[in-house]
């Protein structure tokens, strides 16, 4: 069973998205069902071993807050682009990670890239540190604290690690 249908929820989601994108017909139901079976079988090897989402509701809250933060951060970056370059104070930041699992760390790095004027550039090889480039760095301590309590703490709770 596990090998025949490794990720049943993913399969249901894939089939639903396929039908919503293509409109319902028996042909698409058949093709979508085939793809919904095939894709999880092929990709299961890469997903196996990742910590599961333990708190789906918190995940939803996290995503909504991230969307709001994306809007705020975008307006902020747009403003800085329009201001003269000489007012810009770019900088590097070494963010001490306390998440150790690969997948949650990837989610954190992506959130950081999408939000507060920061882009994740490199992990240290022991994954203890995330190097970030900041478009306008005023207070490194404050930014570290912000990322810690706004993104990393919730992610730790969501993935339970």
């Amino acid at each position, binding site marked *: 069973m596990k090998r025949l249908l490794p990720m049943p929820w993913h399969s249901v989601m894939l089939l639903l998205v396929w039908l919503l994108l293509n409109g319902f017909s028996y042909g698409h139901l058949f093709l979508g069902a085939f793809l919904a079976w095939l894709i999880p079988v092929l990709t299961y090897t890469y997903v196996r071993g990742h910590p599961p989402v333990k708190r789906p509701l918190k995940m939803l809250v996290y995503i909504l807050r991230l969307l709001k933060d994306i809007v705020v951060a975008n307006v902020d970056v*747009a403003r800085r*682009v329009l201001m003269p370059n000489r007012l810009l104070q770019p900088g*590097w*930041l070494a963010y001490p990670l306390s998440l150790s699992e690969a997948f949650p760390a990837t989610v954190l790095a992506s959130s950081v*890239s999408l939000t507060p004027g920061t882009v994740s550039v490199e992990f240290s090889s022991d994954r203890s540190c995330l190097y970030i480039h900041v478009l306008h760095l005023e207070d490194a301590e404050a930014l570290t604290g912000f990322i810690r309590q706004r993104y990393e703490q919730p992610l730790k709770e969501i993935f339970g690690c």
Partner: protein
Amino acid sequence: MNNLLAYSDYLVAFLVLTGALFMMIGSWGLVKLPDFFTRLHAPTKASTLGMGATLLGSLIWFSLSDGSLRIHELVISLFLFLTAPVSAYMMGKAALHRNRPVIERTQDKELAARAARQEGISK
């Protein structure tokens, strides 16, 4: 229903124009910002919001004129939000390991060298 359509015209126009404005600022930033890493910020941020707003406008427009909810735009935005940070990460990483110069006043410049060596935090 006609009234709703008239108001939705304004909303759609607002979203599409805001989207275009942000995409323009993103592209402008790509030209005027001083070094590679600062340039990385403009397209990953401003353009993401610009695309999001434009797609939302398109979603509302076609949902109302067809009379059924369309999710194509939602799926496009989802893929955009998933891929934008990954491509920014890959470009930033490539620039870091090729020692692209940063402008003089960049703070904590020595961290870039440590990042290129993938050093952890010294205990």
